[in-house]
């Protein structure tokens, strides 16, 4: 069964992560408001949201670091509230801040984890070697961490999480601050873990990351789940894409906007945003129409729907500080 199929049959499979009505306040500030999450075994669930949405708090609660004010949660069948040590024995957590020991070498960090997981001397040594190899850290294994690059530290961090072969993994913004190549390496590792049957909850503010990795996405905004579904389902909930046309002067913009009443003009940018389904034919028709009306278009950008549109559609606001996207969609900010 593929991961996608597993996600679809999530009701019948033994769930890796189930959270019901989780609430948490810090002082008067309600950080999580009746959050429900479900991740079937061996699937990837992304918790997507901007800074301050409550993603990290949710991970800290699920990983037994802090307790919820109310709600119930089970991780691989263990109740988070009543059997925290049962939960801790099956989970692995890679937080937002690197959780490595800077005064030890890579090997020593992994050995430390093996010892704390009580793997025993021989099995521990084997597991450490395996992970050094799997995470491409053999050459740096006995070097101090001060010589490690950001990507290497992140890989070591994740390798430390995996020493005890957890069945559920929490990754809090696993690729924040990584260069594009390290990011793709990390994605590959995450995919491999899921296909090996590990349940993964990852938080991200990178829309393309959630899109690339997830079986299910839950959009978190100000402590509430505002949308949920597969990446395809979420994309289906929003209108199609659009073409953004830029003009040399306001007169051209005005004529074009009379010609295309369905499009929204943007006077500041001298641009016109016209709905488009993204096919070559519709684009050709649009350009032909403008050409025949002798309206010169300076340039254009094509925008296919992405998760930012989902966010806009369900929360009414944009995600601030969008990460590196396809250059073609990067044009001017939409209204």
């Amino acid at each position, binding site marked *: 069964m593929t991961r996608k199929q597993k996600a679809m049959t999530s009701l019948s499979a033994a769930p890796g992560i189930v959270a019901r009505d989780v609430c948490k306040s*810090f002082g008067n500030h309600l*950080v999580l408001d009746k959050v429900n999450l479900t991740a079937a075994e061996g699937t990837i669930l992304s918790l997507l949201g901007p800074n301050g949405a409550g993603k*990290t*708090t949710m991970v*800290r609660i699920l*990983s*037994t*670091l*802090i*307790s919820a004010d109310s709600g119930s949660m089970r991780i691989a069948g263990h109740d988070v509230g009543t059997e925290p*040590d*049962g939960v*801790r*024995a099956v*989970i*692995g*957590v890679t*937080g937002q*801040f*690197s*959780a*490595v*020991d*800077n*005064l*030890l070498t890579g090997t*020593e960090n992994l050995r*430390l*984890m093996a*010892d*704390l*997981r*009580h793997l025993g001397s021989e099995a521990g040594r084997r597991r450490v070697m395996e992970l050094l190899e799997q995470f491409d850290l053999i050459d740096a294994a006995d070097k*101090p961490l001060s010589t490690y690059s950001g990507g290497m530290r992140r890989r070591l961090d994740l390798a*430390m*999480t995996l020493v*005890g072969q957890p069945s559920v993994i929490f990754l809090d913004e696993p690729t924040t601050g990584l260069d594009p190549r390290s990011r793709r390496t990390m994605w590959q590792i995450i995919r491999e873990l899921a296909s090996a049957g590990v349940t993964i909850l990852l938080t991200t503010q990178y829309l393309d990351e959630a899109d690339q990795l997830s079986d299910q996405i839950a959009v978190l905004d100000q402590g509430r789940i505002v949308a949920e579904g597969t990446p395809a389902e979420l994309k289906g909930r929003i209108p199609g894409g659009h073409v953004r046309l830029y003009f040399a002067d306001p007169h051209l913009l005005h004529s074009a906007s009379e010609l295309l009443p369905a499009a929204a003009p943007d006077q500041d940018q001298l641009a016109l945003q016209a709905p488009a389904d993204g096919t070559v034919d519709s684009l050709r028709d649009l350009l032909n129409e403008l050409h025949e009306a002798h309206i010169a278009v300076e340039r254009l950008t094509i925008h296919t729907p992405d998760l930012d549109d989902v966010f806009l559609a369900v929360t009414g606001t944009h995600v601030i500080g969008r990460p590196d996207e396809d250059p073609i969609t990067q044009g001017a900010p939409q209204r």
Partner: protein
Amino acid sequence: MTTLAYTVSDSRTMLRRNLKHQLRYPSMTLMLVGLPIVLLLLFVYVFGGQLGAGLGAHDGRSAYLDYVVPGVLLVTVASAVQGTSIMVAMDMTGGIIDRFRTMAIARASVLTGHVLGSLIQVLVGLAILIGVAFGLGFRSTGGPIEWLAAIGMLTLFAFALIWLAVALGLAAKSVETASNTPMILFLLLFLGSGFVPTQTMPGGLRQFAEYQPLTPVADTVRGLLTNAAIGDHAIAAIAWSIGIALAAYLWATRLYNRRRAAEPK
């Protein structure tokens, strides 16, 4: 394995980690071990002639050496526990403590590892300082029993101060704070019988000096190693040590078990 076996195994793992830290952070370890030696040399060779004359001995400097060594042994303890605070604060402000907290390990092992690691560092520091003191001509009247008792007293007091340092390290918001707060121990050392007899101090200060915990400890160790009178100082020293250890232990475990209420950053 039983729960106890896990606790022992996890504590040993953490101790190993802390001993490695001491070796990997040699600048700090050397500074903490070196400071008492520098102070000993300073007090014996710079101030010692004059201070020794005040003790009324024929050879002032060597009489002062005999007087000050127990005080500098306490400096060694205070210096080492400053390292404890720094190491604990480094752990607590870094990401690794969260990793430990999400693992099914004996919770106390993180602190136990720090305490045992610091005790070992204290004992090594004391051994080095005693070696230097003898090299400078320190004369002890104590036999093996007195020496064992003195080391025992210092270890017990170190144990108390280490727990205090652990608590201070846990309470500190930053590593800088953690490295500064134990400085008060140094001040207390000077405001006691560590470097000069309290009888030479003016009224109010003298009373403070006689009733603060470092004085009975210094006097007990001095009495055991040289011929000075101990009196009821030993009982006071042991009582102070146990009291501080217990209070600091409770404070430290409370701070440690308190789950952080707010988000980081």
